[in-house]
């Protein structure tokens, strides 16, 4: 089994890797439409509906540099969809590409804790999967 180190997964926003990330995740969903009728013999029947996805990323806030939380804040300010890539980076990995709208950005700073950020993007339009 050829598993690999999750550290090698990166999320890029507008072509630049989101800096100081510690966690990232991609979630893909398939909605269903119920088409059960009296002829369904008591069993629920479904047909496929809309597909959707989201990408979440969290990490540490930076003092300098613009590719981390500042880029995320920029995406929040513009409100526009940005190009996202969820990339396994490994040569034999897979890469998911989509446009996404930043729907939440949370910054936190606890006493004697490294200040953190977390962001969630809802994907819009086509989600493309390719091998790297």
């Amino acid at each position, binding site marked *: 089994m050829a598993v690999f180190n999750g550290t090698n997964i*990166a999320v*890029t926003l507008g072509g630049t*890797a989101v800096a100081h990330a510690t966690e990232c995740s991609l979630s893909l969903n398939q909605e269903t439409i119920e088409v059960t009728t009296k002829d369904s013999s008591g069993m629920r029947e479904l047909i496929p509906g809309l597909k959707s996805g989201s990408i979440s990323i969290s990490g540490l806030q930076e003092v300098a*540099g*613009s*590719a981390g939380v500042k*880029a995320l804040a*920029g995406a929040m300010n513009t409100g526009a969809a940005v190009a996202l890539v969820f990339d396994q*980076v490994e040569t034999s990995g897979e*890469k998911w590409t989509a446009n996404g709208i930043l729907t939440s950005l949370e910054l936190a700073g606890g006493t004697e804790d490294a200040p953190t950020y977390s962001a969630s993007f809802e994907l819009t339009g086509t989600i493309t999967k390719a091998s790297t």
Partner: protein
Amino acid sequence: MAIIKVTLLKGWEHPAGVKMKAGETIKVLPTLRDELLEGGYIAAPKKQAKKNIKK
């Protein structure tokens, strides 16, 4: 896909609307690296010196 670390030679506006300063180091996709190179935002990669191979 490899993500490449580059250093900006001049200010560049990120697609998210953030202005990045000259001297800042960022990790980019190869496609963006090519765009930055074309626009003169980053220096061309140095060619590696060929090793003398003794026959």
